[in-house]
């Protein structure tokens, strides 16, 4: 292939959500030549949909709140496979990260004293689980993600960040030493393909909820970063761990925040019974999300689901009164009216557990540097590559993320990666020149689609993939179904390799993007299936009906999946970090709420 046009930057961040823009801000403020490359205009990134809050022990609602309590809750929430050094870092610098956002102008809701308003969220407690419910989620009404994302975009404009908006990342360019020297990207408006050369490449591409037929995720959440990393030979970690949010609107899949339950709402079955009292006597509706989701499905399976098909439960809010709902939850009022045709001030909202968040991702250290595993089983840093936010697995969420911890993850590790890159640049890290064939490798799949002349349609294949995942990798999983799905997905891989892109036009060709996204969805789906089948226990969001108990002897560890070897050699394991720097480690205990 002819040489591609080249652009050069110190740092390129792929993805304009909360993590990407926080990292970009750090770099741009220190004068480095920084670009954010995003397939959508940055304020359209999925962070914008986050509703309820961003967790940190700022002590506004409770002056005694302590980041160590937050750390305990996060470790327990993770079902003990979150890395304790990373969780310690996130929870301890959390308050600082929140104040920075406020100083940038983020419009938080306020308390009577003018401080940032905090609301209760699931799994957050006082005094290491012994002091009752904590109010730790800092909120801007129920539009916290919108407020955060717009504030970060505004501050990046101020800092002079270069935005490559509506550019699609095709693949990473890796040179013969295994160092990442940038990526090949496609400018959507013109169809031009460019080599974007960079001293540091940061994947901040978000999640991949679209592997499921229904999800709270945006249509663009197709796991592009995971696909890129796996094709480049990097591993993914704990990819079997998918969070099902208890309250997706029945059929539409649209999210209603856990903040509804934080403000005093609760779930009822068809008999009007507040069933969570039976499953989690202490925390009730504010138990961990995996616990609440399983309880809901149990109610439905036991015939106590609501509606003509008994296939959902109800979220009751009307007792909170119109004023609280109007003041604290205006966004979900809109969504409920639009997508469920109910006014939550009068009627309950029909809800069902819905795919929401990818706990797994590309393994990194606390600086966001991507890690791989070398022959002796030790970690090794991949040169030139970082990952932050949902696409990364640092890992602060383990097997189950706590509500309001995802936005915190974005800003804390976006900032940390930015700081690390600044340091690396100061120490004189330069460009790493790839060979022409390294660049060609990164254009291979684009060429494949462009040269296709016949075959199945992208839309049909995508629908099939999403159905396989929804049916077989849901809240409860069984070995038989998973094994059959692994075969079906291998089959699907063959078919996708022969699928057809009929529209070869250059300008704003969204059919081509959807084809490239399908490659990524397939990588995520296959990784999920193979690892989920391999983890023979139930932990956090991974609940199997053939292995119903947690197995700390064999599985108190991360799973590690390499695309090239998993089919023959199986899934690798990686140790969980149990050595925080300033506090005693939290030892695994039975997890009850």
């Amino acid at each position, binding site marked *: 292939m002819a040489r591609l046009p080249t652009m050069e930057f110190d740092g390129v961040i792929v993805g304009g959500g909360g993590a990407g823009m926080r990292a970009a801000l750090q770099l741009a403020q220190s004068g480095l030549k920084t670009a954010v490359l995003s397939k959508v205009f940055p304020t359209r990134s999925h962070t914008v949909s986050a509703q309820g809050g961003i967790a940190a022990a700022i002590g506004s609602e409770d002056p005694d709140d302590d980041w160590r309590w937050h750390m305990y809750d996060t470790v327990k929430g993770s079902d003990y496979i979150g890395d304790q050094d990373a969780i310690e870092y996130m929870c301890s610098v959390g308050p600082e990260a*929140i104040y920075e956002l*406020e100083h940038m102008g983020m419009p938080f809701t*306020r308390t*009577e004293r003018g401080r*940032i308003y905090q609301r209760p969220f699931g799994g957050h407690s006082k005094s290491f689980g012994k002091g009752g419910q904590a109010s730790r989620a800092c909120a801007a009404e129920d539009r916290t993600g*919108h407020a955060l994302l717009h504030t970060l975009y505004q501050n990046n404009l101020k800092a002079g960040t270069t935005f490559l908006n509506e550019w699609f990342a095709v693949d990473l360019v890796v040179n013969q030493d295994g160092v990442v020297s940038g990526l090949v990207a496609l400018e959507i408006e013109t169809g031009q393909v460019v080599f974007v050369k960079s001293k540091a490449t940061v994947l901040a591409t978000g999640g991949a909820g679209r592997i499921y037929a229904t999800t709270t995720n945006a*249509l663009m959440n197709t796991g592009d970063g995971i696909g890129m990393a796996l094709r480049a030979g990097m591993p993914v970690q704990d990819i079997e761990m998918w969070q099902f949010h208890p309250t997706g609107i029945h059929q539409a899949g649209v999210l209603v925040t856990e903040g509804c339950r934080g403000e005093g709402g609760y779930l009822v079955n068809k008999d009007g019974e507040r069933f969570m009292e039976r499953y989690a006597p202490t925390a009730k509706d504010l138990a961990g999300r995996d616990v609440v989701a399983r309880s809901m499905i149990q109610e439905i399976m036991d015939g106590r689901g609501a509606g003509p098909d008994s296939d959902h439960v109800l979220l009751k809010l009307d007792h909170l009164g119109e004023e609280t709902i109007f003041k604290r939850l205006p966004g979900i009022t809109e969504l409920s009216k*639009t997508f469920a045709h109910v006014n939550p001030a009068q009627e309950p909202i029909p809800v069902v557990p819905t795919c929401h968040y990818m706990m797994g991702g590309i393994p990194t250290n606390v600086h966001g540097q991507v890690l791989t595993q070398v022959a002796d089983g030790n970690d090794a840093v991949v040169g030139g590559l970082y990952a932050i936010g949902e696409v990364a697995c640092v890992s602060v969420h383990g097997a189950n993320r706590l509500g309001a911890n995802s936005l915190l993850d974005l800003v804390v590790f976006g900032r940390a990666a930015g700081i690390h890159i600044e340091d690396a640049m100061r120490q004189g890290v330069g460009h790493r020149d790839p060979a022409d064939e390294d660049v060609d490798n990164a254009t291979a799949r684009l060429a494949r689609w462009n040269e296709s002349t016949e075959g199945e349609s992208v839309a049909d294949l995508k629908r099939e993939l999403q159905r396989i995942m929804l049916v077989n990798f849901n809240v409860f999983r069984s070995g038989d179904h998973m094994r059959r799905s692994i075969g079906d997905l291998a089959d699907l891989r063959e078919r996708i390799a022969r699928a057809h892109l009929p529209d070869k036009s250059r300008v*704003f060709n969204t059919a081509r993007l959807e084809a490239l996204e399908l490659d990524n969805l397939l990588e995520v789906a296959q990784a999920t299936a193979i690892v989920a089948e391999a983890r023979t226990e139930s932990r956090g969001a991974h609940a199997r009906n053939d292995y119903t108990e947690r197995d700390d002897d064999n599985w108190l560890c991360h799973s590690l999946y390499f695309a090239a070897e998993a089919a023959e050699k199986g899934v690798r394991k990686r140790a969980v970090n149990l050595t925080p720097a300033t506090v005693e480690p939290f030892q695994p205990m039975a997890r009850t709420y």
Partner: protein
Amino acid sequence: MKINIYRFDPDKDESPRMEEMEIDLPEGRDLMVLDVLELLKAKDPSIAYRRSCREGVCGSDGINMNGRNGLACITPISEAASRGKLTLRPLPGLPVVRDLVVDMTQFYRQYEKITPWLVNDTPPPAQERLQMPEDREKLNGLYECILCACCSTACPSFWWNPDKFVGPAGLLQAYRFLADSRDTATAERLAALEDPFSVFRCRGIMNCVSVCPKGLNPTRAIGKIRSMLLSQGI
């Protein structure tokens, strides 16, 4: 159902055309216009439009439906096509890139012009800056803007002077910072808006208010900016 959709691919077409397409709608469900677009795209993958969150918060899929701007993902067919016919066009007043995709550069440039970030020249405290709930309440109805451009592209003053008139979306954000008790750049912000075009091209037509998918009121914000400018004696 019959749908008329605006088609233009600069690679192939000399000029834009309207294409009539037909699809079967599922019984008993009121689809959103975006669902219909997705069904059309499954039939003809070459149709181009922007979309992402499909819940009315990302602002990608502002289009013109039967003559009215709105977000395709939260506009039900029953509302958009009340007389059984649906015509889909790109947002008016901006150059068309392809099909329903417009070039939003001018729209974003006006947003960038209003200094869309908080300015505070005092050193930040160790914790958050305090803001009383009644001051914070002044930002409601302003900060929620999703930059979908439905309002500015429905505004005749913006169609006429897209390079000089900031337009309803930009002015709503200009007022969002003027109204913020933490912002210290009021004088500079007003000075940048005092020319005859930036604010004063607004003729109070109020198309912006009638189309805003988030129920916001740019005309009211523009009125407040005018009052601030006038009370400063400019």
